[in-house]
Every structure is written in structure tokens, then in C-alpha cells.
């Protein structure tokens, strides 16, 4: 089995979530070293040299992002851990927080040192109630042990850490919407620039990183950037916790070196589709990544650069597999409905575009569309991309656009053959979800 467990090392131990359990595996050793022996600049350099790329979706260099914050005192700086994992297909942060909360807290404390932030927040989605309870308990333990709070380990450095529970909105995973939500508002994205590194939470410079990104920090500081780059590929160093779900026999989180063949992830680790079935298509990086057909994607290395070269993206590292029984037009509709529901409604192309895409795809699966409607669907997607404050609309436009393009024959076939029965089932089968935003 080609799993390489670094972040999930010892995760099978139920004691790991306690401070005692974590310290048994040398937990908080990196924090002690960073706070006692290293300067902020040295930590920052180590992070930059490691080439660690953000694990939340964009894949931007974590060290570089931290270096964008202005240096020096005279202002309050903040660190936000984005634990609002809500992208369909992604469930890795849930696992990391549930099994090893102290690893994240240690990473936050070290990153806060590098960014010179005095206040840190974990913005966790409200649905993750169990995980938030676990984090609350772990944060209390860390305060008690002197790893958080005033004068950490006698170094005259302070860090306050608050676990902030969201209340159910995918958009709050977008970093500027997260800031608005954290400031107590509706989660609407902000216009950029200014970027959060310059003007973020409460107007102060703010570093925002995903859970998995921050969880990587302690080991990079403990073992060095060179050790980290010995895993993965040149452009995608390290390991990645990959969530594999959908039509596979063993769905779950698997930690692998970046760059392993995608086929190994889907077949060897997750067990592949049921016997006699084939991978028809998959989302390589969550529901917002353009789908790849089995043929074009299975033999690609699973890395940021190879997924980008194939016209898709690694995103949050979440693979959703569709086997040959799955109807792509129905999958497109399910995808579009999600983004329609979650659109905050601020920008017209996203608010209206997601709405019309859902309506048109409903017509497709009811058999009421014409092939020309597929061109309109495609053009609506093109008109969303790049035209909004954030990428929520793009996140629907990219996969839906790719599905229409790559499976156009199937769409046309569905339009031609959708019978009376299908018409009723398609509309009633997809239930209304709670409190549609638009």
C-alpha cells in the first residue's frame, strides 16, 4: 500500500487527541524549538524553502503568503485557520482535526510566530460540532500547558487562540467571506485588493491558511525544509491527505506522496469501482475541479502541476469517482444545485448564472431542452468565469463546462430519450435543501 503517513502518523491512537498522547510522540517539540531558539525570519525562511503549497484549493506557496504580511510592530496582525471545509468531496480537515487537534494548534502557534500575529482564530464550519468540541478541549489543554496565552514558555510572546464556529455557509471558506463572517457579518466576499495580508481581519494584516497547510508546519520546523522536499515532486513537495469518495469500494482519507499515479489512489487504496464497473469520470480536486474522464486522468501523476496541465486542478485534494452507471447530466445538475444554493448573491454573474444553469440542466434531464441549449449552458459558464468578486461561480462553471464539453453526446442522448417517467423522477428526485440563498 503506497500510503505515506506523516500528518496522519499515529492517527490510529485514540489518545493522540489529548495533550499527553500528543506529547508521547514528541508533540510541541517543534513549538518549543521555534519559540526558544528561532527568530521569526528563520521560521519563515524554512517554510518558504520547504515549498509547502496551500492545501485549501489554490495551492499557493504558504511561506510566500506569510511573507506578504508587513513586518514590524505598531499594528495588530492576525492568523486565521480556515477549517470551513465545505467543498463537496472534501473531508480531510475533519479527519485531521478529529484525530490530531494538537498538531494543528502547534502549527498555528508556529505560523503565528512567523507572521508576528498576536491573535489567531480557527474558523470551523458549524456542522463539525464534534470536531469543534475536540478542538475546544485541546485548546484549553494547550493554554493550561503554556503553549498558548501570555508569555508563551517564558519567551515574552503572546498568542490568543479562539475556536470560532460558523453556522452553515460554504461561501465562508472563501478567505475574505471568512473574514466578514468572523467579524460577525453575513459571509460576503470582499473586493480584492487589498488582499488580507495587507488589510484583513479588523483591517489588520492577516494570514489565512487551511487546516492541512498549518498541520504541516510543526514537522517542517522539526525536520527542516530539505526533509520535507524529499517527499512528493519538485513543484508539489510533501504528502497530501486525499479524500476519495463516490463510486469506490473503500472511500476515505489516504495520505500519499504527491505525484503518485492517480490510478493507485483510486484503485489500490480506495478499492476502485465495484467489480465489473469502470471509472467513467472523476473530479480530481473537489466538486469545483473540471472533471477528467477515466481515460485522460487515471494515469496522470497526482500533483498540482500535472492536474493543471490536464486542464483541471488538484484543489483541496478530493477525488470523487463516477463509474459507468452515473449519469453525467444528472451529476452536472447536482453540482450546479450546490453552487446555486451556496451563492451569496452579491455578484450578478454568479447569482443569476448558477440559477439559470440549474434551470437549463433541469430542462436537459427532463428532456425539454434542445442541443442548442447546451451551447447556451456552455456560454453562461464562460460568462461567469472571472467576472465575480470570488471564485464560487467559477467553481460551478469549470466542472459543468467540462462535463458539457466532454460528455456532450450523453447530454444530447438524455435530451432525446428522457421519457415521461424520467421527467417526474428528475425533478422530484433531487430534494430541496435547506434555506436556499437565492
Amino acid at each position: 500500500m503506497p500510503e505515506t503517513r506523516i500528518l496522519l502518523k499515529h492517527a490510529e491512537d485514540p489518545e493522540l487527541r489529548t495533550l499527553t498522547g500528543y506529547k508521547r510522540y514528541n508533540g510541541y517539540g517543534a513549538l518549543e524549538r521555534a519559540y526558544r531558539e528561532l527568530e521569526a525570519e528563520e521560521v519563515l525562511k524554512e517554510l518558504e524553502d520547504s515549498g509547502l503549497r496551500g492545501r485549501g484549493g489554490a495551492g499557493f506557496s504558504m511561506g510566500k503568503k506569510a511573507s506578504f504580511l508587513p513586518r514590524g510592530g505598531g499594528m495588530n496582525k492576525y492568523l486565521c485557520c480556515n477549517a470551513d471545509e465545505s467543498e463537496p468531496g472534501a473531508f480531510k480537515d475533519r479527519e485531521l482535526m478529529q484525530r490530531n487537534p494538537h498538531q494543528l494548534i502547534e502549527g498555528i502557534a508556529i505560523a503565528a510566530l512567523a507572521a508576528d500575529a498576536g491573535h489567531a482564530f480557527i474558523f470551523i464550519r458549524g456542522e463539525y460540532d464534534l470536531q469543534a468540541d475536540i478542538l475546544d478541549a485541546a485548546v484549553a489543554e494547550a493554554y493550561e500547558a503554556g503553549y498558548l496565552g501570555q508569555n508563551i514558555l517564558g519567551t515574552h510572546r503572546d498568542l490568543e487562540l479562539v475556536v470560532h464556529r460558523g453556522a452553515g455557509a460554504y461561501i465562508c471558506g472563501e478567505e475574505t467571506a471568512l473574514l466578514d463572517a468572523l467579524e460577525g457579518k453575513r459571509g460576503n466576499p470582499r473586493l480584492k485588493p487589498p488582499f488580507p495580508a495587507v488589510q484583513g481581519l479588523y483591517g489588520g494584516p492577516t494570514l489565512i491558511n487551511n487546516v492541512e497547510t498549518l498541520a504541516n508546519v510543526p514537522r517542517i520546523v522539526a525536520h527542516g525544509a530539505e526533509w520535507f522536499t524529499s517527499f512528493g515532486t519538485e513543484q508539489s513537495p510533501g504528502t497530501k491527505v486525499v479524500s476519495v469518495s463516490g463510486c469506490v469500494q473503500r472511500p476515505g482519507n489516504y495520505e500519499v506522496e504527491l505525484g503518485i499515479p492517480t490510478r493507485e489512489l483510486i484503485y489500490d487504496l480506495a478499492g476502485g469501482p465495484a467489480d465489473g464497473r469502470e471509472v467513467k469520470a472523476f473530479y480530481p480536486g473537489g466538486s469545483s475541479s473540471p472533471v477528467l474522464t477515466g481515460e485522460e486522468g487515471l494515469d496522470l501523476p497526482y500533483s498540482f502541476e500535472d492536474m493543471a496541465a490536464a486542464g483541471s486542478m488538484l484543489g483541496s485534494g478530493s477525488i470523487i469517482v463516477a463509474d459507468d452507471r452515473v449519469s453525467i447530466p444528472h451529476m452536472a445538475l447536482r453540482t450546479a444545485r450546490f453552487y446555486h444554493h451556496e451563492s451569496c448573491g452579491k455578484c450578478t454573474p454568479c447569482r443569476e448564472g448558477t440559477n439559470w444553469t440549474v434551470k437549463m440542466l433541469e430542462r436537459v434531464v427532463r428532456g425539454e431542452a434542445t442541443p442548442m441549449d447546451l451551447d447556451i449552458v456552455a456560454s453562461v459558464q464562460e460568462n461567469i468565469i472571472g467576472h465575480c468578486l470570488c471564485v464560487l461561480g467559477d467553481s460551478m462553471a469549470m466542472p459543468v463546462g467540462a462535463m458539457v464539453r466532454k460528455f456532450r453526446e450523453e447530454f444530447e442522448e438524455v435530451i432525446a430519450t428522457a421519457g415521461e417517467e424520467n421527467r417526474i423522477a428528475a425533478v422530484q428526485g433531487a430534494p430541496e435543501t435547506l434555506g436556499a440563498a437565492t
Partner: protein
Amino acid sequence: MSDLPLDPALTEGRVPDRVPEGVPELHEVGCPPELKERIEELMGRYPDRKSASIPALWAVQRLYGWCTPEGIKQAAAVMRVTPAYLESVASFYDLLHTEPVGSHKVAVCTNISCWMRGGDELLDAFRAAAGGDEDIFVTGFECLGACDIAPMASIDERYFGPLEAAEAATAIEQLRAGEDVLPEKALEKRPLAGDADA
């Protein structure tokens, strides 16, 4: 110029029929002391008290079962914001209810991975099992971040899966009887995927 009659079209129907609600005074709203204390403690955690609006609404919902207009007013009085402000926040988020809901909440994921594995059928089964019982709020929900246990449901804020449609009735019975719900299907008890039946 001042002699000219004012065109009634400019004003008629444009005068608001009531003054917008201001920040309520604490003594007007009858806020229970424990709610006041809780919200004050929450406000103390943040550099800006307004950051406590979502946690304060959670506190209101925990106390009253949903974000009641009275509860929102009470929180607004403690936080020194208008009730309209908190209402605008509450109505944005799926987990904050601005209408009455039952004391038990079942959210069934119907997103891509769960849909592929029978999420819609599971939602139907939960609806049928609850049978219009007003105390049990059953709803479809967007991705809950547990595609590994698809199809799954969040029952009173804990995750369970993978569920057979037939297990919905058992879960509802257990909820009504006040028993532990489907203990063997709790997410918390699952091993890592790579460690299961290796």
C-alpha cells in the same frame, strides 16, 4: 420659491410607516441572566464585540430551540446592535433557524457522493419515518464533509453512516425513546480508511 406647493407625488407613500427599530434596552427585553452572561463571555473573546454575533445566535438557538424574535432582541440588547442586524446574520446561515424547528434535527446529505450512494432514498426514508412529527426536523442538506461514510446523516449534530434506508426508522425510534442513536454507525468510532479490515 417657498410658495410653490410641494408635489404630493414626491412624498405620498414614501414616508416610512414606522421608525426603524433601534438598539433595544436591556431592561425592555427580559433577557435571562444566563444568556446575558454567556453572550458577554463570548464578546470578551474577540477584539471586536460584533464578532460574537454568530456565537451569540448559537446561544439563543440553544436556549429557545430556534432564533426567536424575542431571543434575537435579547441578544441585540446585550451586544448593543439592532435586532435587524442580528436577523440579517441569522437568515444568512443554514444552521441558524429563524422559524420554529423540532427539538431533534436530522440533516441528510444529498450532495454528489451521497447522491451516488443513495442519499436521496435515505432522505425519503427519514421523512417517512418521522411522519410529520413536528418535534423531529428532517431536511436535505448540502455536503456535510463526510463523503467517506456516504450516504450519511447528521443527527442532533453528530455524524452517522454509511446508512441503509431501513436504518432511518430505527434512528427515529431511538430519538423518540431518548436512546443512543445507531451507536455502531457513529463516525467517531470509525478507523482510518487505510486501517479498516486491512
